[in-house]
């Protein structure tokens, strides 16, 4: 939910055209979710060693 809400506001505020806003929002959302999953795996692997 954090990723969703933050991506919406980022998309609206950081881009001009509607198409760009949607695209930027989707990319930001993907980065948020991907980063969270990657960070989770990194911490998991660090914790094992």
């Amino acid at each position: 939910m954090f990723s969703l809400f933050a991506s919406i506001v980022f998309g609206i505020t950081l881009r001009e055209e509607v198409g760009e806003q949607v695209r930027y929002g989707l990319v930001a959302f993907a980065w948020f979710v991907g980063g969270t999953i990657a960070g989770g795996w990194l911490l998991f692997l660090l914790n094992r060693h």
Partner: protein
Amino acid sequence: MPSDTVTKRATPPSPSRTTASASGMASWWVVALGWLFPGMGYFVNRKWVRGALVLVSVAGMFGLGLALKGQIYGFNTGDVLDILGWVGDICAGALYFLTRALGAGAGNPFTVMGDYGTKFLIAAGLLNLLAAADARDVYLGKKK
């Protein structure tokens, strides 16, 4: 030549300059409205969809923060992080004042979820400020 000088001094400010100044002042009112009521900055600019999305996003994140038992910071002069927490919280405008008035947002610092909730509340405020500043750019015509 002295008469020219007198004429120049007596000339009132040009209308375009006065209008620009008034517009500049009004733009800060747009920021204030956008800060106090999430999404209102866009509503003033007749950007209904953007305003609604910002309203839902900011209020949703703020509500989630409260549901997770996040803590609302009051004004303080103690730890730097506590001060910054208050700054982030107060950026949510009316949501902050309403929560304080209702006595909610006491938070539960002993649970992980409570800590997440506190961060949600701060993030909601910062997103609201970002949107309010963007609404000013729209008002001034710097952005569509």
